[in-house]
């Protein structure tokens, strides 16, 4: 096959993946609303198709460009989408058996891919020599992995906040209503421990306090979501740290300074500091729960700025996006 044919195949696979993720998103949200087992099966099947297409798109692009396919923003975005969906299907759906958050994950994947094509598309080309370093490969790989992990963590945090709010409303309703309050109805919003989720081995989606059935959002208990989110962020943080350090080593090698407060560097530092703040907040009484979750969300916004806004609006040494 010629380079052009590989490039076209990559584009086609990208489009297929995008449409598959849209369909999976719709099916997942439908499952969340109607709880039909078949909807979940369909969502997972389409999600897997999207994931495979996404992977094919990455590999064929690498072949077309004749190098590892993470050289610019478009490629980072496709890679991150791949890892986020993979991480979701593997760890959250298959291992932790949480099924109801898929819609949010696919929504993020769709957004990420749409951003990639609309703002960052470039054809597969070779790299500038300055960008061609061993450390760059490690740096970029680490940053992509960390972003995916932190991304999933923050997504779960959003879902956690939604669920925690609904649990609080529920508790309030029980307290003011005629029904006696439940005995520890699994809705430990403030008591969510460092990392002790209620056993989520099976049927984690079902609210624990089954006696308090009423109109509820059909999501896993907030403590489960919180613990899962923490796991992903705790995993993502050291990887981000490592990635930033590798970036500094690369910068030292290429530009003669390991740190220059270039906008991309500045923002990766900001993101790092905010997530460090999150980890501290988790360990501090009074900051656990909602406040820590908000810090995590601020961190995620900062991560998105690190990725996108810096390339779109703020120029710097890293402005090889276009």
């Amino acid at each position, binding site marked *: 096959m010629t380079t052009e044919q590989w490039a076209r195949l990559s584009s086609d696979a990208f489009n297929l993946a995008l449409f598959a993720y849209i369909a999976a998103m719709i099916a997942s949200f439908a499952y969340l609303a109607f709880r039909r087992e078949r909807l979940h099966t369909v969502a997972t099947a389409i999600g897997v198709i999207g994931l495979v297409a996404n992977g094919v798109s990455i590999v064929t692009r690498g072949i077309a460009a004749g190098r590892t396919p993470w050289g610019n923003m478009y490629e980072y975005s496709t890679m991150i989408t791949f890892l986020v969906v993979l991480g979701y299907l593997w760890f959250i759906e298959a291992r932790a058996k949480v099924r109801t958050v898929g819609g949010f994950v696919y929504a993020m994947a769709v957004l990420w891919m749409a951003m990639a094509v609309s703002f960052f598309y470039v054809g597969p*080309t070779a790299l500038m020599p300055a960008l061609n370093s061993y450390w760059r490969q490690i740096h970029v790989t680490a940053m992509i992995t960390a972003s995916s992990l932190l991304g999933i963590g923050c997504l779960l945090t959003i879902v956690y906040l939604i669920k925690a709010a609904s649990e609080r409303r529920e508790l309030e309703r029980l307290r003011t209503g005629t029904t006696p309050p439940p005995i520890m109805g699994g809705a430990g919003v403030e008591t969510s421990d460092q*990392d002790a989720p209620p056993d989520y081995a099976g049927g984690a989606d079902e609210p624990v306090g089954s006696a308090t059935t009423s109109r509820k959002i059909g999501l896993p208990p907030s403590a489960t979501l919180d613990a899962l989110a923490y796991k992903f962020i705790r995993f993502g*943080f050291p990887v981000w*740290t490592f990635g930033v350090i590798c970036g500094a080593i690369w910068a030292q*090698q290429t530009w*003669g300074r390991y740190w220059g*407060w270039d906008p991309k560097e500045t923002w990766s530092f900001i993101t790092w500091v905010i997530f460090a703040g999150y980890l*501290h907040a988790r360990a501090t009484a009074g900051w656990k729960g909602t406040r820590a979750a908000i810090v995590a969300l601020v961190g995620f916004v900062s991560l998105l700025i690190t990725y996108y806004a810096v390339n779109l609006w703020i120029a710097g040494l890293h402005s090889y996006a276009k």
Partner: protein
Amino acid sequence: MSGPVASTPSSLRKSVALVWRTLRSMRTAIVLLLMLAAGAVVGSLIPQIPNSPQRVAAYQVDHPLWAKLWQAAGFFDVFGSWWFALITTLLFVSLVACLIPRSRAMIRAARAKPIHARELDAFPAFAERRVALEPEAAAAKAATMLRRKHYRVELDAASGSVAAEKGALREIGSLAFHWAFLLLLIAVIVGKGTGYVGHATIVEGYGWTDAQFNYDGDVRTGRFFGGDFSGTQIQLQNFQDDFRTSGIPMDFSSQMSLTAPDGTTEQADVRINHPVVFNGIRIYQFGFGWAPIVQVRRGDQTLFDGPVVLGQTTPPGGNPLAQPWTGFVKLTTLRPQIAIAVRLYPDAVAYFQSLATGVPQPMTEANAPFMEYEVWQGKLLDNSLTTLDTRFMHQTSQGLIGKGWTVDATRGCVISGTSGAIPASLGNVTCPTNGGPATLTMGFPDLRQYTTLQISHDATVPWVLAAAILIVLGLLPALYISRRKVWVRARPDGTGSSLQVGGFALQRKDRFDEEFASLVEAVTTAAGGATTRESQPESRPESQEVSP
């Protein structure tokens, strides 16, 4: 802290204590971290003087009012501003205030022995087994087993009691991480503060010495830099560039010999991503370009003889390699003063091909190079080698000069030289033989390349790297290791003993149940194995196993 105070401390001492306590709190750390982030946000949104002085100047013209405000607040140099330094310092103090007691506590904990417990069934994880060995032996065996599982163990054999704990590495890692972060901050500040960085342009066959005034433009020196540049001499022997056929650069390399003031010399090859460290400075490949050797004479008086470093202005979207290179020779001693502006086409063949086809061709190699020149007379306003202010000048002539030619610059005609690849129609007019002696002749004997190197001195780079490695190494146990405590108690029970095991984990509790179950099995086996009811008829069946 509370309670009656013997001698009333001054309110000053009280408030100092309060400030110290506040600084030590984790809440302060969080707030300071977020403030550090907020400062960095400002630094990335408002143009910064150290990074882009031109953009700051433009901003001051466009938004004079805001600019004044930002100026006053130090927002144009956030990372060098007093308030950023204040936040960093507070974070420093907070870190130290928090780390010293934590480190002390850790050392104390490392010396102390695990403490025995009484009511084992009160712990979140608990199990009871009957084993064959007597209490003393059973406890000893259990202790050995726990040691083998890397627990720190304290055995009181007489009372059949074992206390064990594991996971101190978490706190060690966390402390290592925090100290390393402190070290990193200090190393960065010292390194940048005592270092310098600048750019040096050297033409093939020429030399350069590391001293303040030899740099292109400004050298950026640190706040505590004493002014002693390294004095290293660099002699550029050859510059090499390789391009793909598409004109995309592949590699650049500068071959040079380096000499330190003490006489040590070294041969070096500086390439993209392959800097060279010598005599305390780091040398990086930064840029490159063309430098024609130009000779200007009036009669037999030589006015200029040397390389002219040329630069490029690339139109947006254009291929820089398809653009000509421009530069100036400024003859300041003449009255009136004279400036010769040159425009170099390194590859005549590629250039005329792009003229003919309309498709820009990259000019990556010297191939029948030629220059267009303009002679200006009048008053020079500056010595810049990259711009010419013609407000007080007028152009007297123009022409073309190929490599190896000599031209009469006053009349714009060629004295000697073969046109080769250059069409005669382009104005390479041969001078009339009877025109009299030329007043200003210009020669172009050679075309060379120059390299631009970035030269920097930063003494703490190894420290920064070490701190960074320690940060990652400390972070991993700090985030992943969990602290666990386990107790075993053996009491006489018939011929054997009844073994109680209790414990808990401070972190990652969801993982502990499994570990605890296997620990109970291991300890039971070590203590002679669980005995069956037949061999111990007097046992109470309900105490066989108690699960939490």
